[in-house]
């Protein structure tokens, strides 16, 4: 089976802009093509990851790059859309049908809480059970009850990620906050606070993907896609579905556990062999739970990992050195590809003050509505 590699990356900063999604997306796509040294006319298939944009957005964005007749397909899998789109490109290249593809993630979202009618029933909206952070918060509360995780440990994750973002010109906030500022920011849904949640915003990220042979012929610098997996949560296994009831007895592993198991197997690697992690910190608690689900520590020990500083940029398992979604914001369709761009840049050794020393392998992880989870493992 042929290896699939990334030969070009491009990103449009995440934030809020007086620009159309077509312009934002096209900017990232052009940057990725330029970085790969490839012309748009050479691309054989393109995929757009997006959730909140209209139908055929991929065509609307990429038409700006010039006339083409290649298939351009929009892919949606909530917060995991980017992983789902990248996976389609990987499968197409592995099949031998094509050997050069563009995967773009783009989004433009209104300020504030996300439109609930996209994922909740009308009666849940009328009763007020349609606030995404409420679900993350209930999970946090239970974890605190079961394992003694504290509000301070949760705040420390937000502190770390905001501080990391100071060195990321593509992040929305780029601002360090003290632990006191985070702990005194207003509660969104107890125990989760304003400076501990990510905001929906605008942004785009793109990668040019090729077969290893094609990359060699092009003379491109290649980063290997060691795994690109996508699963959805099994029955009653995740809080983000959202469900109107959960089972008290079903014991299915969560979506991150299932996707990670697949991805580690495909890559032939375990969590100890990975140098950096970009994960779904939709809220600061979520990152703690993901440490456990990715196997970075035992279940219940996520808070301790934070206290020991192991997930900081200088720690032995750096997580979200880009600043994470908490500081970058979450343009849903673009977020996973933004993580992939970050890791490729890190593996190339091009990340400046936030560079993880001698990074060889990195993981990008996203998790969202419908229990959609995607994990990409990249290797140099």
């Amino acid at each position, binding site marked *: 089976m042929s290896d699939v590699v990334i030969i070009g990356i491009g990103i449009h900063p995440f934030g809020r802009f007086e620009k159309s999604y077509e312009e934002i997306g096209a900017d990232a796509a052009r940057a990725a093509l330029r970085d790969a040294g490839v012309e748009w006319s050479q691309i054989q298939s393109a995929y757009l990851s997006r959730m909140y944009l209209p139908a055929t957005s991929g065509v609307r964005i990429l038409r700006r790059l010039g006339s083409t007749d290649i298939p351009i397909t929009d892919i949606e899998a909530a917060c995991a859309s980017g992983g789902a789109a990248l996976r389609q490109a990987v499968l197409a290249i592995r099949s031998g049908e094509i050997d050069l593809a563009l995967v773009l993630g783009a989004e433009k979202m209104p300020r*504030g*809480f*996300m*439109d*609930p*009618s996209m994922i*909740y*029933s*009308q*009666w*849940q*909206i*009328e*009763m*007020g*059970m*349609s*606030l995404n952070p*409420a679900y993350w*918060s*209930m*999970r946090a*509360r*239970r974890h605190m*009850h079961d394992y003694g995780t504290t509000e301070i440990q949760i705040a420390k994750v937000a502190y770390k990620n905001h501080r990391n973002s100071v060195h990321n010109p593509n992040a929305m906030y780029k601002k360090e906050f003290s632990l006191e500022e985070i702990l005194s920011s*207003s*509660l*969104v*849904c*107890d*125990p*989760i606070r304003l400076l501990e949640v990510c905001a929906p915003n605008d942004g785009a990220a793109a990668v040019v993907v090729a077969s290893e042979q094609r990359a060699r012929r092009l003379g491109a610098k290649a980063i290997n896609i060691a795994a690109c997996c996508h699963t959805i949560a099994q*029955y*009653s296994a995740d809080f983000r579905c*959202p*469900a*109107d*009831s*959960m*089972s*008290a*007895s*079903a014991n299915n592993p969560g979506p991150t556990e299932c996707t990670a198991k697949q991805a580690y197997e495909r890559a032939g690697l375990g969590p100890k062999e990975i140098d950096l992690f970009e994960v779904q910190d939709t809220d600061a608690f979520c990152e703690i739970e993901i440490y456990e689900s990715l196997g970075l520590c035992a279940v219940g020990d996520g808070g301790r990992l934070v206290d020991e500083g192991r997930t900081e940029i200088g720690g032995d398992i750096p997580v979200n050195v880009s600043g994470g979604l908490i500081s970058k914001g979450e343009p849903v369709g673009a977020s996973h590809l933004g993580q992939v761009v970050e890791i490729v840049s890190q593996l190339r050794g091009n990340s400046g003050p936030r560079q993880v020393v001698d990074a060889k392998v990195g993981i990008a992880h996203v998790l969202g509505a419908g229990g959609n989870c995607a994990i990409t493992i990249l290797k140099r």
Partner: protein
Amino acid sequence: MTTWSDKVERKRVPICEDLLIGSLDELNQVRLVGSRCSACGETSLGRRNVCPNCGRETVSEIPLSNRGVLWTYTVVRHRPPGNYKGPDPFAPFGMGLVELPEGLRVLTPIHCDINRLKIGLELQLRPVVRKDADSREVVSFTFEPIACKEIQI
């Protein structure tokens, strides 16, 4: 004697079909309805044709117990987006998963002082009536601590 207009005004509707069981005119008789699967044994909220766990059609309707225990909770501090029909002006409210004896945890608003919320709190179902602008009466539900009424006095 009941007039036609009285009847129209008094007609109550459930907030969602297939969620409640019992006459809506006698609120203390209203229960949540669940679907129990005889094949896999799982029970889920609402009247369903297929089991959300095993996908079989071996489900039957059961009234769910009106008492349960709070498994986890949060406080919604901001007005939820979209067509929220709660009090105006908005007041923060509790929301949680209530574990029922039938083996499921139901997502519900919780009607009590938010400072009383605690995992393990014993709760009971409280069907509530909301009057819409067209004076239609809509029956929805909340859970409240079992001794709530006495404490409020």
